[in-house]
């Protein structure tokens, strides 16, 4: 009987606060579902057996824990709203003679009920949707599909364990809150007088300056390596600036507007501005969080989508031909012995009745080096320390003969002695001459705009400098003299050889395998003393791994995107709801003083609109300024397709905005009901 009493009290507590508890329970349910799906996919045998599947599962297992941690933080956040709203009720119970121990039991029952609903519902939905997610993944990996529903006890147990801990923590937190307050405070907790917020001009200014600085950084950074490093600096600056602007900046702006009497004392502005000051003070941090969440979602969605959509492009840049050879040696003469490899390739293709097409064939002298005023100095130079500046001056230099350049690019350039052509990627070459070691400076006759791909360039983050010279062997002499501290020669010679095949992936793999065997034999023939390294890569073999990686990122981007959108939306909802309760009495007074319902509605709308769309707007601005940086970082991944990125970014923003508008409509209705509810009860 007595146990029943607590149970009933808890249940009616949940039911009477439907408006608060339904979204909360749904959130719990959604989090459980997402966690289970992630965990399910991480251990899915179907995925594991697929090419690229293991890569993807590695990424997903990371995602599982991201969701777990996020669930903890987020549920704590939403739970605090619930506790705040219900303190009054608990205070009443307390005064009516229920001890804190009894209240604890009510809370325990409530939490148990929610946990059971969330776990049962979430796991049920998770099991249902996990197959769908699996199919999606298989599709992303471009593989065959099997249609059988399966569940994974291990994932179920893991989900139960993780969320049991989370719910236990939530319960303890609620208990702590109840214990810390005395009944009078519990009753009154919602009506404590609030000081009018003071505008903190210093912080507002700091926010504006930080944001300006971050934007300036984002727009002005040229090379991708610096972009990678500075991106995180910029992100931290933007996060700080967003918080400062929302918390201090917004209040400062409202105060400024209040000082302008002609603007302030207008029916439309009077009520809105003066309540906005309080609203922003209370919600600045929350709104800033929402803004940052939105930006995160958008950046993640647009970049992962772009990577996935551009995977084929990237694959082609990384593996310029269907089959690629990269032969590395430290003696130029060794490259003369590559004839055997050419024949082996020819043979391998012929054995499968295939013709080599679009053959790529050229030599390169390569060296990783510092540049000092256009002089290639090798690895020591006079650089002090390994700071950012030293790193920015580290270049990969590729020397190519003019003959090869003209042949590959279909050009007919000529060079006088002491002249060269250059081509640089990922950074601008700033000097007029190029000097090889202690040799004479060569005048840069022309900076050309393109050169053949080699697959090495995209896999490295350093800027590349191609130098095209007329006398390949002769001009290299000063570079051959450069050594590292152990006296080893720094210069390496590469022979890039690649060809396309007009056949399916399986045949390409067969040819590659055969070629590999032949190459291994050739390598052994060279003997032990010679340094000759042969790398044979096929686009077909690598494709699966590629899709595993990019597809995994894409999938993760979408799943996390959904979770974060969920989170942002719920934060908005609770914010509006709790404000609705606070504004209720205020609007009642306004009506008594002579404000029409229409005026009240208009004032509400303008405030809700501002609060709602300010984060989205600022997120859009953040995204626009982040764009150049994202673009440069994707360059590092070998993706060079600005149009695609713009399209995807704008697309993600629009889809996101659509979600947002829908939520706005639902939320503002709930808010208006609360605000006007008090009056209609009379």
């Amino acid at each position, binding site marked *: 009987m007595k146990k029943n009493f607590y149970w009933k009290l808890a249940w009616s507590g949940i039911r009477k606060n439907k408006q608060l508890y339904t979204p909360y329970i749904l959130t719990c349910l959604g989090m459980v579902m997402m966690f289970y799906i992630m965990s399910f996919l991480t251990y899915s045998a179907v995925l594991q057996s697929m090419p690229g599947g293991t890569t993807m599962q590695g990424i997903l297992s990371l995602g599982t824990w991201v969701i777990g941690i996020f669930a903890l933080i987020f549920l704590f956040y939403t739970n605090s709203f619930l506790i705040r709203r219900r303190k009054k009720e608990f205070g009443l119970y307390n005064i009516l003679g229920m001890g804190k121990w009894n209240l604890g039991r009510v809370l325990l029952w409530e939490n148990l009920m929610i946990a059971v609903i969330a776990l049962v519902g979430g796991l049920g939905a998770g099991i249902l949707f996990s197959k769908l997610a699996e199919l999606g993944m298989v599709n992303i990996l471009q593989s065959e599909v099997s249609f059988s529903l399966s569940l994974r006890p291990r994932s179920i147990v893991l989900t139960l364990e993780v969320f049991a801990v989370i719910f236990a923590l939530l319960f303890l937190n609620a208990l702590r809150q109840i214990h810390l307050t005395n009944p009078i405070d519990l009753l009154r907790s919602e009506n404590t007088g609030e000081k009018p917020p003071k505008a903190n001009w210093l912080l507002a200014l700091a926010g504006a300056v930080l944001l300006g600085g971050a934007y300036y950084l984002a727009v002005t950074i040229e090379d991708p390596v610096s972009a990678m490093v500075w991106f995180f600096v910029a992100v931290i600056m933007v996060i700080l600036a967003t918080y400062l602007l929302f918390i201090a900046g917004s209040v400062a702006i409202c105060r400024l507007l209040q000082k302008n009497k002609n603007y302030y004392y207008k029916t439309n502005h*009077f009520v809105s501005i003066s309540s906005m000051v309080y609203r922003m003070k209370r919600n600045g941090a929350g709104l800033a969080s929402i803004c940052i969440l939105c930006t995160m979602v958008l950046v993640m969605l647009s970049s992962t989508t772009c990577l996935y959509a551009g995977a084929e492009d990237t694959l082609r840049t990384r593996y310029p031909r269907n089959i690629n050879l990269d032969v590395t040696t430290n003696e130029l003469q060794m490259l003369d012995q590559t004839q055997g490899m050419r024949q082996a390739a020819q043979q391998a293709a012929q054995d499968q009745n295939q013709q080599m097409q679009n053959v790529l064939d050229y030599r390169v002298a390569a060296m990783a080096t510092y540049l000092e005023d256009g002089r290639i100095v090798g690895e020591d130079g006079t650089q002090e320390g390994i700071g950012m500046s030293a790193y920015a001056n580290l270049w990969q230099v590729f020397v190519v003969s003019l003959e090869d350049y003209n042949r590959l690019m279909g050009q007919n350039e000529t060079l006088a002695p002491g002249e060269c052509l250059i081509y640089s990627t990922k950074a601008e070459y700033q000097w007029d001459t190029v000097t090889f070691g202690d040799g004479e400076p060569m005048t840069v006759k022309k900076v050309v705009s393109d050169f053949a791909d080699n697959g090495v360039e995209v896999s490295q983050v350093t800027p590349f400098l191609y130098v095209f010279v007329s006398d390949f062997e002769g001009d290299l002499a000063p570079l051959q003299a450069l050594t590292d501290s152990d006296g080893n020669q720094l210069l390496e010679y590469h022979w890039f050889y690649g060809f396309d095949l007009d056949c399916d992936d399986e045949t390409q793999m067969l040819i590659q395998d055969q070629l590999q065997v032949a190459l291994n034999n050739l390598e052994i023939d060279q003997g032990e003393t010679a340094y000759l390294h042969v790398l044979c890569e096929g686009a077909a073999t690598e494709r699966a791994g590629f899709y595993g990686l990019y597809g995994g990122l894409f999938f993760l981007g979408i799943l996390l995107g959904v979770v974060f959108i969920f989170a942002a939306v719920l934060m908005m909802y609770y914010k509006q709801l709790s404000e609705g309760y606070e504004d209720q009495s205020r609007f009642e007074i306004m009506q008594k003083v002579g404000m029409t319902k229409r005026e009240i509605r208009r004032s509400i709308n303008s405030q809700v609109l501002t609060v709602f769309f300010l984060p989205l707007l600022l997120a859009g601005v953040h995204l626009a300024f982040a764009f150049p940086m994202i673009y440069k970082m994707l360059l590092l991944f070998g993706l060079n397709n600005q149009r695609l990125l713009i399209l995807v970014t704008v697309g993600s923003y629009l889809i996101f905005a659509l979600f947002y508008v829908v939520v706005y409509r639902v939320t503002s209705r709930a808010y208006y009901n609360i605000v006007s509810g008090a009056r209609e009860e009379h």
Partner: protein
Amino acid sequence: MSILEVNGLQKIYTTRLGGNQVQALRNVTFRVEEGEYVAIMGESGSGKTTLLNILAALDKPTAGTVILDGQDLARVKESERAAFRRDNLGFVFQDFNLLDTFTLEDNIYLPLVLAGKHHTEMRRRLTPIATQLGITDLLKKYPYEVSGGQKQRVAVARALITNPKLVLADEPTGALDSKATDELLDLFGRINANRQTILMVTHSVKAASHAGRVLFIKDGEVYHQIYRGNSTNEQLYQKISDTLTMLATGGERK
């Protein structure tokens, strides 16, 4: 000329469940002349609040009419009610009803801002009122920073600043201590001396004893009324007390 005419006012509430009917006002008829200071007394549940809500055009009577300065309240369109209230009536409430997000000055300006007045005009109107009410030094403060008596004086300033035809006061001393009550009642007396019509609903004998006339409501009807005549506040206080005793002990009506 009467500024307010209330004729045969009746209000019946129907409870939501069971359809029980509750008659809050049975038949209320009275007039208020311009410049009068009228107090309406009655116990809880006598229909005071209902009457005030109807006078404020917040609620509609089931039968009967309310005519304010020649204008029938029932004829005022729903969409114009708020503006009508704002322009013709001033309100003073028991719990002040000041907005905590505004400074006291802005609280007073609220009805004028809603009426679309220019801020120099507002300032011009406020200055004499603030001086009269002794709140000039408080104007830049926020409601949470001042005492209950001060809050109520600000609320009075807000009610007066639109130059209303009628000030409706609902239990204005209900939340004040005795000193603040005395001050506020003095204030009402002075405002009334400036020909401002005041209608006050109260069950405080002390508050009512400052009025020029006291109406007693019982069970939804005007049961009795007392004119001040030449009585002092103390004498009127005594008369009111006697009447209330008579009412409470069930004496037959006139």
